[in-house]
């Protein structure tokens, strides 16, 4: 006697069966796919936005360099504010690994006002710094409007404003007539800087030439910060030498820092926030998965007569299970695909607005598809098993 062996469904047949179920009920399918899409899109957008921001930071650090070290006075043993010796700049310049050195000095009594009519206490927290002309190059700053100080303008009452200072004083662009009231006399604004990522203290500063400070404000400020560029291969070694060179007598009163480290640390803090958002995305995905399970359960209930018919045509329980599982997987995959497109688009738009490069890592896309498949598989398993258990006669009797 011949043996009875059920036919095998080929992969294209399984795909067709799954797609048939989806085509038969487009609205619930679109809605539950949307649930998955939103979850996947949220996760993709969170990860890709964070990666794009990181890529932007890397690009920024690449362009700014990570070899800028700043030297500032710390605290004395008695907890008082220390100062840097006048010769510290010269001493630091003698270190072999140091390629460039410049310094700024805070003029604490030179307050900045938009006009001489502004009440004295409303100084807006703007700091006046006496600077050298090589500051711009050393800290990697760029001029947004106007010009930077040169050997001539550094001797006269001319000022370059940090980005935040310009905002605070309400000065958008430089023209010949703009003057500000600085340290009790008028200074002409000749330039406005872009934000300086490696020396953010300059953003809320009004920068005048060292000679101008001495000449017009009658003060010769202490050196408050020394900026150095060291040989990129000897940054750590140079770091150790800087404190001892800046203040050989009391190196413990000198703070040496690397601003690029602060930017990287900021990115690490962002990572924690990314983790939180990722968790929210996962919750959205879970809700989407429940939506798929719900759609599939209803699908099985509504299609009992189809199940009965297929059983009469010779479908085994396994065939029925495979059909509904493939339907659920396809549904989730559809949502996952849409989510990847949506998440990538959101990332691209956000990154473009922020001026970042758009980076959607491959592992995120693969992970998104895998997550969709897992959700589809888990959500579809119970309905598929239920469909396979329906007795053919019972299914055929359904309306």
């Amino acid at each position, binding site marked *: 006697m011949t043996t*009875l062996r059920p*036919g095998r469904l080929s992969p294209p047949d399984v795909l067709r069966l799954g797609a*048939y179920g989806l085509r038969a009920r487009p609205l619930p399918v679109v809605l539950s796919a949307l649930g998955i899409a939103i979850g996947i899109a949220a996760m993709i957008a969170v990860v890709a936005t964070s990666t794009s921001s990181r890529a932007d930071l890397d690009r920024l650090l690449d362009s700014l360099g990570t070899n800028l070290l700043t030297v500032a006075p710390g605290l004395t043993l008695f907890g008082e504010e220390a100062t840097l010796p006048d010769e510290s700049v010269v001493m630091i310049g003698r270190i072999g690994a140091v390629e460039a050195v410049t310094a700024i000095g805070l003029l604490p009594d030179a307050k900045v006002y938009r006009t001489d009519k502004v009440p004295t206490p409303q100084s807006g927290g703007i700091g006046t710094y006496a600077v050298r002309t090589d500051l711009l190059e050393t800290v990697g700053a760029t001029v947004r409007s106007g010009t930077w100080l040169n050997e001539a303008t550094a001797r006269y009452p001319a000022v370059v404003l940090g980005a935040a200072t310009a905002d605070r004083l309400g000065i958008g662009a430089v023209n010949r007539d703009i003057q500000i009231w600085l340290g009790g006399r008028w200074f002409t604004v000749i330039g406005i800087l872009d934000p300086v990522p490696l020396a953010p203290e300059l953003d809320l500063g009004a920068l005048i030439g060292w000679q101008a400070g001495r000449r017009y404000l009658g003060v010769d400020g202490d050196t408050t910060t020394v900026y150095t560029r060291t040989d990129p291969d000897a940054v750590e070694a140079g770091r150790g030498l800087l404190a001892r060179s800046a203040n050989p007598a009391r190196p413990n009163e000198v703070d040496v820092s690397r601003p690029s480290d602060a930017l990287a640390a900021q990115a690490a803090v962002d990572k924690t926030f990314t983790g939180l958002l990722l968790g929210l995305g996962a919750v959205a995905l879970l809700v989407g998965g429940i939506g798929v399970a719900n759609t599939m359960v209803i699908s099985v209930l509504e299609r009992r007569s*189809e199940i009965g018919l297929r*059983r009469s*045509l*010779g*479908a085994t329980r396994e*065939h029925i299970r495979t059909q509904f599982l493939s339907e659920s997987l396809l549904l989730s995959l559809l949502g996952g695909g849409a989510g990847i497109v949506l998440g990538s688009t959101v990332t691209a738009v956000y990154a473009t607005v922020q001026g970042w490069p758009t980076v959607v890592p491959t592992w995120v896309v693969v992970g998104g598809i895998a997550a969709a498949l897992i959700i589809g598989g888990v959500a579809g398993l119970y309905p598929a098993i239920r469909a396979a258990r329906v007795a*053919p006669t019972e299914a055929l009797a359904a309306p």
Partner: protein
Amino acid sequence: MTSSDEAIVTLRGVRREYAGGVTALQDVDLDIRRGELVAIVGPSGSGKTTMLNVMGTLDRPTSGQVVVDGFDVAELSDREVSALRAGRIGFVFQHFHLAPGVSVLDNVADGLLYAGARLRERRDRAEAALRLVGLGHRLTHRSHALSGGERQRTAIARAVVREPALLLADEPTGSLDSQSGEDLVRLLLDLNEMGTTVVVITHEQVVASHLPRHVSMLDGRVVEDRTAVAT
């Protein structure tokens, strides 16, 4: 080759009880020979559909023996019973059970889906089956665009596309007008002429009158088994 006298379906002492103590079939003994054309008649609730389900292996008896095409159904697993249906039994239902939104051709081709045939072969054979039932001009139409008679013909094409040895029809004319019903009975007669064993459940005398053997049921029992003498 099997002889035409050999039974394709044999029921011995078949009993089917449902939960709640309802007995749909009681000690039914029946033989249906190859090539026969049988009408199972009886009032509603007499057990006709249960009988058809048991003969078609869609349902298993509570007790008794069912042998279909030489296979004792009690000894077969669900997979084997499914394979038996896929290869040897065709069903036609009162409510057609066609997939809406799918072409007539693919509805019929699905009849071969679980028999292991490839898509191209399924479609080729489906086209031949549709031409056999007179629907060669409707291949690409969607099933919901067909008339009732055409739908039932499509369902018959789906049942016979596998060339089953046994065709079981449950009230096939129940949803049709009299003309379509008559055409359908003629089609079943033609299929029987070609060698298919046909069992039709009906409560319509007009339909039954065309079929030579009448098995009458009442309260789950076979009360009469009569074969008309050919004129």
